[in-house]
């Protein structure tokens, strides 16, 4: 079994425990933050193990790359602390189990990963994906298991991720364009954190889109609309990809609105909060988030993650916003119909 590459000394000598200081769900001063993370590091009980909402934020806040989020998940599991109800935790384990039902297209060296989200297959069509759409992959055998971190089941992640990578390997793919932000985050953050080798080059779909949009630049009709971006939790694991949103928006003539809740201060869509904490926190977070989108002057709420889109679409519509996936927005800009996103 793989183990987390975590350096106790890095935490012990940390000059600013931002992992907990910046946490949006726990309020601590610097001293307490240091004390609590050290309790976690040393295997003691800590309020962090009971109050973490699994937003992934601390992975981004930690400037020293010491993986506080994965550590918290590890320690929770070691102590048998459940984040969500046991039946819900097991429901996720069961529903994402490999059952030999995956589908693959005509696989070439470069493949298009749709994770276990069939809607992504619909999104990954049209001119923007014409080169790689036939080489699609969708199914549990190729699904990133990062979702189980929300349930503090790192054992599932460590068990399944190597199998997922083996399955990719068996297809002889060299490059995989990940339509699910979390897949890319899994391959480029979780895998190295556990010393798991990834046998292909993962490509974030926004990198791919940017390249394609540059090729199709002459066909882009600037949309001239205002949009607010919903950053998903998985993007906290890959903050180096955040800039792509602005670059793509600029390219298709979308005015990305300044928000209070953006960048490091982004708010979770709330679906996992609902499962872990109940409706009070969820209602509060979702209301602040949607109100903030609307207050920004945006016409569209733009999603990266299909789950965020499912969770927030209805609320966004009620707030007068038009929910849309990033890929569909790009399709609009080149005069194509939207397709596949969860409406």
């Amino acid at each position, binding site marked *: 079994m793989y183990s987390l590459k975590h350096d106790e000394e890095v935490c012990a000598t940390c000059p600013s425990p931002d992992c907990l200081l910046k946490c949006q769900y726990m309020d601590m001063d610097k001293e307490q933050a240091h004390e609590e993370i050290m309790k976690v590091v040393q295997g003691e009980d800590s309020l962090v193990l009971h109050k973490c909402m699994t937003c992934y934020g601390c992975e981004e806040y930690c400037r020293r790359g010491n993986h506080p989020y994965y550590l918290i998940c590890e320690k929770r599991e070691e102590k048998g602390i*459940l984040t*969500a*109800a*046991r*039946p*819900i935790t*097991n*429901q996720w384990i*069961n*529903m994402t*189990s490999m*059952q030999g039902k995956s589908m693959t297209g005509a696989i070439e060296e470069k493949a298009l990963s749709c994770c276990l989200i069939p809607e992504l297959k619909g999104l990954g069509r049209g001119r923007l994906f014409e080169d790689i759409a036939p080489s699609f992959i969708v199914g549990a055998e190729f699904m990133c298991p990062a979702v189980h971190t929300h349930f503090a089941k790192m054992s599932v992640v460590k068990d399944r991720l190597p199998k997922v990578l083996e399955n990719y390997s068996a297809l002889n793919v060299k490059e995989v364009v990940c339509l699910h932000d979390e897949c890319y985050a899994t391959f480029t953050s979780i895998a190295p954190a556990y010393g798991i080798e990834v046998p292909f080059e993962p490509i974030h779909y926004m990198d791919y889109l940017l390249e394609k949009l540059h090729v199709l630049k002459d066909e882009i009709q600037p949309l001239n609309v205002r949009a607010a971006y919903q950053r998903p939790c998985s993007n906290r694991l890959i903050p180096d990809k955040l800039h792509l949103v602005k670059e793509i928006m600029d390219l298709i003539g979308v005015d990305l609105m300044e928000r209070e809740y953006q960048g490091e201060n982004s708010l979770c869509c709330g*679906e996992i909060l*609902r*499962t872990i904490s*109940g*409706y009070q926190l969820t209602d509060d977070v979702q209301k602040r988030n949607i109100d903030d989108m609307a207050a920004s002057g945006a016409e569209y709420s733009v999603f990266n993650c299909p789950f965020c889109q*499912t*969770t927030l679409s209805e609320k966004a519509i*009620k707030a007068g916003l038009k929910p849309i996936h990033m890929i569909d927005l790009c399709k609009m800009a080149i005069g194509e119909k939207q397709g596949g996103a*969860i409406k």
Partner: protein
Amino acid sequence: MSDILNSLVQIVGEKGVSNHPEEIWFYSRDPGTLEPHEPDFVVAPRRVDEVRDIVKFAYEKSIPLVPMGNGMALTGLVRPLKGGIVMDMKRMNKILEVNERGRYVVLEGGVSQGQLKAYLEDNYPHLRHSIPDAPPGTTIAANVALHGQGRLTQQYGFNSDMVTGLEVVLPTGEVCKVGSCSIGPYWFSKGPSLPDISGLFLGWLGATGVFTKVGLRLFPRKSLRDVEVFVTDRADLVEDIIYRLTHTEMIEDLTIWFQPKPMIFKDNYHINVYFTGDTEEEIEFKRKMIWDSLKVHMDSKDGGFMGVGAMKATFLEEPQRSIAAFADVPKGGGFEYSGPISPIEHFAKYTAKVYELAAKYNLLFAGTARVISGGHAMMYGISFAFNRADKEMMNNVKEALEEANEFTLEHGSIPWKPTVSEQQMTMNMMDPNTLKIMKMIKKNLDPKGIMNPGNWEVS
């Protein structure tokens, strides 16, 4: 035979009678596992006087007569066990009156669930009836005749509790009205404050008369409807969960279900909590009350509300079509269930039995339950899917259901829309004096025993 045919033709015309092999084949069976029984004639009246004349004729000639709605009970209730005439009521499909302020409808005995739903949606969008999760072609009259339940049963009881009056053609041919409609033009009460004689007909599965008109309560249709799904892996907690949820008095419908496939549902018990409102505020208030009512089980991590996401549309369907999908999982489209009306406290016990039977007979199962009347009882459905082309599998389903019925009867349940053999098992356990009353009723109303013979037949 041709004399009988000619007599029936005289009553309903040539197009309303058949003894052709294709009709005889069709009307000899229902979609369950029980063996077919052929009728000699099928007749489809259009008016109450035609029903009356058919019944009188059958009575005079001592010909067995089986009134039929859509024949979808799955328990063989309209198979003509002794041959004779099957009377298909579907041509009597007029919705006669909607009393909007009094919230009731009067309709003919062949009006279907889907027809009434569509009619109300088009003409009375603020009213609804308790639609069962059955094919929309099933009829209102048949549903109340077998004490059916529907989407509003949690709030208002069995669909037969919602009857506000009946017009029944007795086995001897008299047309009889039951309730307030017997003394005036209004159909607001099937009994109170008169002696309630509707019990002579409701639940008798057509063995005491033919329903030609039914008065039925209607209920407010709120503009918003939503569902939350609570999940636990402990069957022993379901009883308490139901108790806490029904205490809120805010729930439209409450169903519990469990099934081994697909994997997302494995090992868990799902409690669908339906609620309605006219405003977002009302809906959100109820949602919070529902969540709060189960806080103790969430805090213990024994249960939680699952994200419904894309499944919501399916859950909110009326009627739900997912049952049909379940029937086709093993291919071959077979599906039958035992539906005991049960004390809620036996949920865990019954559930263990379902798992035991599924393993013993190697069957794919789905367990369901609907809470009745705010938590006084539940309709517990033990469903098995089978391939109609696989005789062994069908036989296994039959045996498993028989064993399930025996088990639930022993634990104080009452079989719902029971097969003839379940009726016999029930009567064998019944208090002798209760049985005596049933015998008196049947003998007096149907002295020649022509109506749906074999059903509720006290030996």
